């Protein structure tokens, strides 16, 4: 086994071993202290093990791991966020009796989140995808209140639905491939010949679209992101959600153009991009605002993939991954900023607010930030026609939404328990929510540059061309103008409940209750003795006739 393979395995095995340790009650209490170290092997893997593979013999584990460029970008950046958020989690958990339980959910989600970036076979991918999706439920409902429970229910329902779609897609993929291969590369490469090609692509888009929160499956995002504790929501919104992104990268057949599904994905993506902004600006809770921003940003990524799918352009895999990597740091960071803001209070808000403003506006494409690079990386993919223009306009929307977020951030109330009486000692300085926030903010600015220059092969000159600068500045100006309009007339906006279209499901509820009540009545009737007896006779006759019909 080469060092690279070893690292690949370790990036999953290390947090898994920590999880095993959680079986002991004593060890479980100490788990929070190790949380920041758990993703370290994954980070090392991303840095040093590019191109490595690891395969166990087919039986019994049939585990195959592989690290390609998009996977490495996402893995490394996500690991970075997990490390920093782990530090924040330590602060959050200090003195809590249920810290061990939190750590178990955290580590399980972590394994899945890291794993999806490197899994190379269908069952492993499905397993790791399930882990990152379902284990996050424990994080969502960690603070047990009626509203977090509701958020948890919605979250799990959609996660399970998405997995059902994916399971079907994976079965179709595997069945369509000769010798029922289970390797992702084989099955996706073969997709063009599959008799169920369109159905499969549709299911893949549905399954991963739910994970990415594309409209109308976005409803879980505002609920769950508002419900989960700050460190948890940072990793969920930053890292965990990218399971959907890597899923699309891995499973959509970018080799061969399929314009129908590509267009559909573009439409859904663009709609999500604007919809997220439109609903986001009506929200007051900064966590909710960020959640809608995620809906919008994932929409942009989906649009990129849609363009790639319709033109058969493999390049979008790397571009999309880069865009997503930027989003990992920024979105994770901004959630940490909310925690930091709540801990320092409005008097000393500027060390939080200033970096927040820089990286938040980066989402809108502020020149020189990672956001501008991300926009640059996908600019050619989006093209210069209608989609390109709409993409640029969505940046205007993002600017607007981020300015709105910064406004809301200033109004975050101080959480009493977050205020530490003596913040002099070095330890509490590190553990206080400000330090991780500043670290991730710094990373959000630097890391995209490093990636842009090294992995994407871009140059500083490209990024600083006047045209590139102008094309990122004008949407921001529009966004700024819209924001001042919002400041003025914002109070006229309707109050949209969190989870927006979820209210329409209120109408579905009685119907489904009636339906299941009908099942119960049917069961009641069928289970009466004479009815069951008659059923038995009818079946006997039916079987007799059926065998007779086969002569």
């Amino acid at each position, binding site marked *: 086994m080469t060092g690279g393979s070893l690292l690949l395995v370790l990036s999953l095995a290390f947090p898994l071993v920590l999880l095993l340790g959680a079986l002991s009650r004593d060890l479980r209490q100490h788990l929070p202290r190790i949380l920041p170290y758990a993703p370290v092997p994954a980070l090392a893997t991303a840095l040093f093990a590019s191109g490595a593979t690891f395969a166990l013999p087919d039986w019994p584990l049939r585990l195959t791991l592989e690290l390609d460029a998009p996977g490495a970008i996402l893995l490394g950046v996500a690991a970075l966020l997990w490390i920093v958020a782990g530090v924040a989690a330590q602060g959050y958990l200090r003195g809590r009796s249920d810290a061990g339980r939190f750590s178990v959910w955290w580590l399980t989600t972590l394994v899945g989140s890291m794993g999806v970036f490197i899994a190379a076979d269908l069952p492993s991918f499905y397993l790791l995808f399930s882990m990152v999706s379902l284990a996050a439920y424990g994080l969502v409902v960690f603070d047990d209140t009626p509203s977090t429970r509701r958020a948890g229910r919605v979250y799990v329902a959609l996660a399970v639905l998405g997995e059902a779609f994916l399971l079907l897609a994976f079965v179709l993929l595997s069945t369509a491939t000769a010798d029922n291969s289970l390797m992702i590369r084989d099955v996706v490469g073969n997709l063009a010949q599959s008799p169920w090609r369109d159905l499969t692509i549709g299911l893949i888009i549905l399954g991963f679209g739910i994970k990415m929160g594309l409209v109308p499956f976005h409803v879980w995002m505002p609920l769950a992101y508002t419900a989960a504790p700050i460190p948890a929501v940072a990793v969920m919104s930053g890292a965990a959600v990218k399971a959907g992104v890597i899923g699309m990268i891995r499973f959509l057949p970018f080799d061969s153009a399929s314009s129908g599904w590509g267009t559909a994905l573009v439409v859904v993506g663009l709609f999500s991009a604007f919809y997220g902004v439109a609903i986001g600006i009506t929200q007051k809770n900064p966590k909710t605002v960020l959640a809608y921003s995620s809906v919008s940003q994932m929409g942009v990524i989906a649009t990129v993939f849609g363009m790639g799918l319709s033109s058969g352009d493999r390049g979008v895999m790397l571009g999309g991954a880069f865009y997503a990597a930027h989003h990992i740091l920024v979105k994770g960071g901004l959630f940490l900023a909310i925690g930091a803001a709540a801990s320092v209070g409005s008097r000393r808000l500027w060390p939080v607010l200033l970096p927040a403003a820089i990286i938040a506006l980066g989402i809108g494409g502020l020149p020189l930030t990672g956001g501008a690079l991300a926009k640059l990386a996908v600019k050619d993919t989006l093209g210069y026609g209608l989609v390109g223009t709409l993409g640029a306009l969505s940046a205007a929307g993002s600017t607007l939404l981020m300015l709105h977020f910064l406004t809301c951030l200033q109004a975050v109330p101080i959480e009493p328990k977050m205020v530490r009486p003596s913040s002099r000692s070095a330890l509490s300085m590190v553990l206080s929510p400000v330090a991780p926030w500043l670290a991730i903010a710094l990373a959000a600015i630097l890391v995209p540059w490093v990636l842009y220059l090294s992995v994407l092969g871009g140059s500083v000159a490209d990024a600083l061309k006047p045209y590139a600068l102008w094309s990122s500045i004008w949407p921001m100006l529009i966004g700024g103008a819209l924001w001042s309009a919002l400041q003025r007339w914002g109070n006229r906006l309707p109050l949209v409940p969190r989870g927006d279209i979820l209210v329409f499901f209120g109408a579905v509820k009685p119907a489904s209750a009636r339906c299941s009540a009908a099942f119960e009545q049917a069961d009641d009737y069928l289970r009466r*003795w004479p009815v069951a*007896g008659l059923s038995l*006779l009818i079946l006997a006759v039916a079987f007799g006739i059926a065998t007779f019909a086969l002569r």
Partner: protein
Amino acid sequence: MNAATLFGLCGAVLVGLGLYGIIVHHEPIRKILAFNLLGGGVFVLFGIIARRGAAAGFGGDPVPQALVITGIVVAFSASAVAVTLVMRLFEVNEAARREARSGHSAEDAG
């Protein structure tokens, strides 16, 4: 029509009757009765099969005859368990009813 066919048809009718009884009767004890009617019909069918297989100087094929003997014993065991269950259920319900009644009368008295 020979005796075997005649009794065979008789067995077929008994099966129908027994099934009907098991299904439509409400009282468990009547279901048990019908179950035994049904069983009788099935055993008669075994009997005519034995009769038709008469050979080697025997009046019937001994294998189905032996199967019926085993079957009758199993059916009896089943009836015994079922009847005991019915009686036990009856007693438990009776006891509960008595208790409820005495509870009521105590309340009335109080």
